């Protein structure tokens, strides 16, 4: 890997060198490094681009890293990664995509991640997206996440996209079985002329299932964002979605929360708030000696932390 790829890898996966545990590093359309463990197998798909990650039942305190980096301008790819997580597991999965585009043609990564999570398992899934390079070519990522959560299982998904991605349409769908629990936190910042769309659909099918969807977004310059959150309560369940957004400059944000109760004991809440940075927050930080610009920076950094 060259320096640009290493930098992307650090941005999206916090990796300086090869990680411990299982991993598969994909660079410019091909797997370049892979490691499997006794409990975690990674197999290349033979019918399409992508890999199967198979985690044995009972696997605990192990991690899988599957970062993707693209540094060749004009590369477009569609990749399918399927995770099969057995029963009684406790694992951390770190994905992420970094695109560096210094050329004039569009670079695009469309990743479809499917999670089939067994019973009584805990999965932490972290996904970061990052773009760099100042070529005229666009940096486009369209991540799709499909989640099937088995009985009593718990998944915590953390997605972050803070810089450099010109256009993104992300879609996350989840179906939860009995007593399954899903927590999703999204952090999104757009700038320049970027466009980001983030849609969620969560089906709370099992009795006692619950989902909490928290999105914090900042749109600056001329960027636009659309946030769609749909929660369907199909049993005795609890669902909550929250979109909290700051707009700056000429940016535009729409938030469209939707909750549907198909069961008498479905308890569903949505909250959405969009506004500019509160003036008194800036004033307070200025009284501590910060300039207005520094104050804004601190407020946004905190908000997206």
């Amino acid at each position, binding site marked *: 890997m060259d320096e640009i790829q290493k930098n992307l890898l650090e941005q999206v996966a916090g990796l300086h060198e090869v990680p411990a545990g299982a991993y598969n590093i994909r660079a410019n359309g091909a797997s370049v490094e892979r490691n499997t463990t006794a409990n975690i197998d990674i197999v290349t798909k033979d019918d399409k681009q992508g890999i199967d990650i198979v985690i044995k039942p009972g696997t605990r305190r192990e991690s899988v890293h599957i970062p993707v980096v693209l540094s060749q301008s004009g590369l477009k790819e569609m990749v399918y990664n399927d995770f099969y997580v057995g029963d009684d597991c406790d694992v951390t999965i770190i994905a992420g995509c970094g695109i560096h585009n210094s050329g004039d043609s569009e670079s695009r990564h469309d990743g479809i991640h499917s999670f089939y999570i067994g019973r009584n398992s805990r999965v932490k899934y972290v996904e970061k997206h990052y773009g760099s390079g100042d070529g005229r070519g666009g940096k486009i990522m369209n991540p799709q996440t499909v989640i099937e959560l088995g009985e009593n299982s718990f998944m915590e998904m953390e997605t972050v996209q803070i810089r450099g991605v010109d256009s993104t349409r992300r879609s996350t769908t989840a179906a939860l079985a009995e007593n399954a629990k899903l927590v999703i936190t999204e952090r999104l910042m757009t700038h320049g002329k970027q466009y980001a769309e983030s849609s969620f659909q969560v089906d709370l099918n099992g009795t006692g299932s619950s989902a909490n969807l928290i999105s914090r977004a900042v749109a600056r310059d001329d960027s636009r964002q659309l946030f769609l959150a749909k929660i369907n309560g199909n049993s005795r369940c609890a669902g909550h979605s929250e979109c909290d957004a700051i707009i700056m400059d000429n940016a535009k944000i729409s938030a469209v929360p939707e909750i549907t109760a198909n069961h008498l004991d479905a308890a569903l809440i949505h909250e959405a708030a969009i506004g500019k940075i509160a003036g008194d927050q800036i004033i*307070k930080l*200025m009284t*501590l000696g910060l300039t207005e610009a520094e104050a804004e920076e*601190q407020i946004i950094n905190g908000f997206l932390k």
Partner: protein
Amino acid sequence: MLELKNLCFQVPGEDTGEKEIIKNINLTFKEHSFTVITGPNGGGKSTLARLIMGIERPTAGRILWNGTDITEKNITERANLGISFAFQQPVRFKGIKVKDLISLSTGADKKLSIAAACDYLSKVGLCARDYIDREVDASLSGGELKRIEIASVIARNTPLSVFDEPEAGIDLWSFNNLIKVFEELHDTSSNSLIIISHQERILNIADEIVVIANGCVKAKGAREEILPELLSGTESCKYYQ
């Protein structure tokens, strides 16, 4: 160190004309002075403090800092000259932690040690360990927020600090403590304090008292002079009329 000269502040009135909130105020705050500003609700105390900090700009009059005219200076410039202000209603932030706020207060360039941040918090009666990593957001109670606000100003340790009703919402035990903190601040440095307060016990520790009502200075002078009249009963008090 701070001089207010013929300071006026008007806002557009509801029907016609201007509403005068501060009317031709002249005050001088000396180095190492301890002044409590009091007076009826709506009298203009907070507005005066906001004018001193630069949050509001006067419609007439000048503000001098050690002889230099700072009327046109913005909030940041005044903060860096050495003026601090604890808000009557402190601001909440999503995602900014108590230790971040204290650390910004002591100076963004210096990295504040956890121990030092804890010191400021215990001064205002907060058990530092429980608070240092909490966010300065809606999860804090009113009194907790107020104490963190006070700590953020103490941490700045500037030549002039203005506290707007620091006692509001603070429980009894912490209030006793707070009095000690103000006395100590006054005794151990040459910094000046201005405290806006309605509390007799705070009036009791001041060197100077200023009474502001209806946008004007109704009385000013040494505590011994002003306090007896103030305590003779608010109803009949001549300063409140």
